[in-house]
């Protein structure tokens, strides 16, 4: 029986391929389960952070496109948002994986796309861009009329009007809903290794290891609560970080009018 410190040094980075190669096979300790599931969280955080950071910019572009008067911008944005919001992420993962697989068959150049670190990130990026774009679009439509009229009165046009007036207000209004989206994106990352993307060399995410332990011990009552613990922790961290941004976005408002970030997020996307 190894000590817990030994287990941590063996398995803390197992999910990205460092440390002990073999997973524990029998006599699973709670320490091993905690360490490995925690190690898997590296993947969940990686998927979530990359998809959020890149998806944000695309989402803003899509939201502006959807509210454009010209159909050449509006139609494609609407179609894109409908495609990704109207179909299950699970099926999107499957379709994307097999699509990448057939690309790879024709051109070896596309090989990295079939690995989760790139292929799944692309799907998550497109998916979160669509969901966030709908949120931003809603915020864009509820910008107070006075704000834009004031911008016009100051003679602001084009980019500077967007950059100084529209964008900050849009962010401010959309932020609580966007926080919710971020939380659900992190939850959605748990699907990656359960759809088609293979966990090469047993390098998987938190849920992958949790279900590994549940299958081996036939006891779901230990690994899944551990997983729940990690995800609740992650949710709290996300709420904390987004709360800081929310305060900054609202710092010009009088104290009483500053909307607090709802600490009880919606349950559904």
């Amino acid at each position, binding site marked *: 029986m190894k000590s817990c410190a030994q287990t941590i040094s063996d398995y803390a980075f197992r999910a990205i391929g460092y440390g002990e190669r073999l997973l524990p096979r029998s006599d699973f300790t709670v320490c091993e389960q905690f360490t490995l599931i925690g190690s898997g969280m590296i993947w969940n955080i990686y998927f979530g952070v990359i998809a959020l950071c890149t998806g944000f910019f695309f989402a803003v572009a899509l939201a502006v496109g959807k509210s454009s008067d010209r159909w050449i911008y509006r139609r494609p944005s609407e179609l894109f948002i409908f495609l990704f919001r109207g179909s299950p992420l699970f099926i999107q993962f499957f379709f994307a994986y097999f699509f990448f697989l057939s690309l790879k068959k024709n051109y070896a150049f596309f090989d990295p796309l079939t690995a989760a670190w790139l292929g799944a990130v692309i799907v998550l990026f497109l998916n979160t861009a669509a969901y966030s774009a709908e949120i931003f679009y809603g915020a864009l439509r509820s910008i107070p009329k006075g704000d834009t009229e004031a911008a016009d009165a100051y003679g602001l046009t084009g980019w500077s009007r967007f950059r100084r007036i529209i964008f900050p207000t849009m962010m401010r209004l959309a932020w609580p809903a966007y926080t919710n989206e971020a939380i659900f994106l992190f939850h959605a990352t748990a699907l990656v290794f359960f759809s088609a993307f293979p966990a090469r060399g047993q390098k998987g995410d938190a849920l992958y290891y949790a279900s590994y332990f549940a299958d081996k011990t036939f006891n779901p009552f230990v690994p899944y609560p551990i997983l729940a613990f990690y*995800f609740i922790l992650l949710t709290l961290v996300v709420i904390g970080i987004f709360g800081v941004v929310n305060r900054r976005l609202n710092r010009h408002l009088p104290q009483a009018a500053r909307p607090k970030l709802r600490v009880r997020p919606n349950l559904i996307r």
Partner: protein
Amino acid sequence: MFSYCTDPSTLDTFRWLTCYLTTGVHMSFYKSFLLVLALLAVTAPVALSFGFLGAMSARSPVAPVSWLGKGYIAIVRGVPDIAFFLFFVIALDQSFELIKHNIVCSDWTDPIRQGNDFLVCPQAKVPLGTSPEYVHQLYGFLLAVITFAIVFGAFAANVLYGGMQAVPRAQLETAEAYGMTRRQTFWRVLVPQMWVFALPGLSNLWMVLIKATPLLFLLGIEDIVYWARELGGTKTSKFSAYPHPDWRMWYFLFLLIFYLSFTKVSEVVLERVMRRLNKGQATSGGEAMRKETSA
């Protein structure tokens, strides 16, 4: 299926395709779409009643009951729903077997958890090892329905609780002023009015439920994802009269289109329902409709 299908290798593309798409396994594939619809049809009302119970108990004046309801709502928050699916399938199965075990084999002395095994006496297996295949499938489906109902019941409870809170306080006070009891106020005033507030949330929930149905695959059910993977995989002429390369991409494209049209249809229908419910309500939606008709 068609008479000309006896020798597929001689057919032209169109006829080959009609034969290919009507083979026995494809019929099972089409049947699994009915399975998804059946799951939705069964789960939606069950989850809604779970949600109603949850919301009712969350509003209860008795503290432990209220904690129970609020705890139920809160427990699904913060954790991915897929984790709940994987958890409940094993947990429910084991608890059913444990209950049956305690009833059927009360004289069993061995411990039930032996290391990595969960052992109940053979008579307490659910379903029995000797049962026919369809019983096993039905049991799997039942587990899936309960799992979906528990998870989506918590979502629905949250939405209904919000709807109940949104009913204007004055309405309830009026009911009290008329001398209605708590129960009467709840059933005659609160419940009829809460739906219009809850409907946007519930229609959103319906969309999420539709999009959660492919997770049936993870619960070990032969659903559309299962068949799309099976049928799309490469078939060689050795094992099949219809050899084809890896077509899984096209099968999943078909599933994507299926879900897109399903959500689109739901959206249109729910929009109509919302208009109907808004008629004559003292909400901004009802106000907008009044202006529309008077203008």
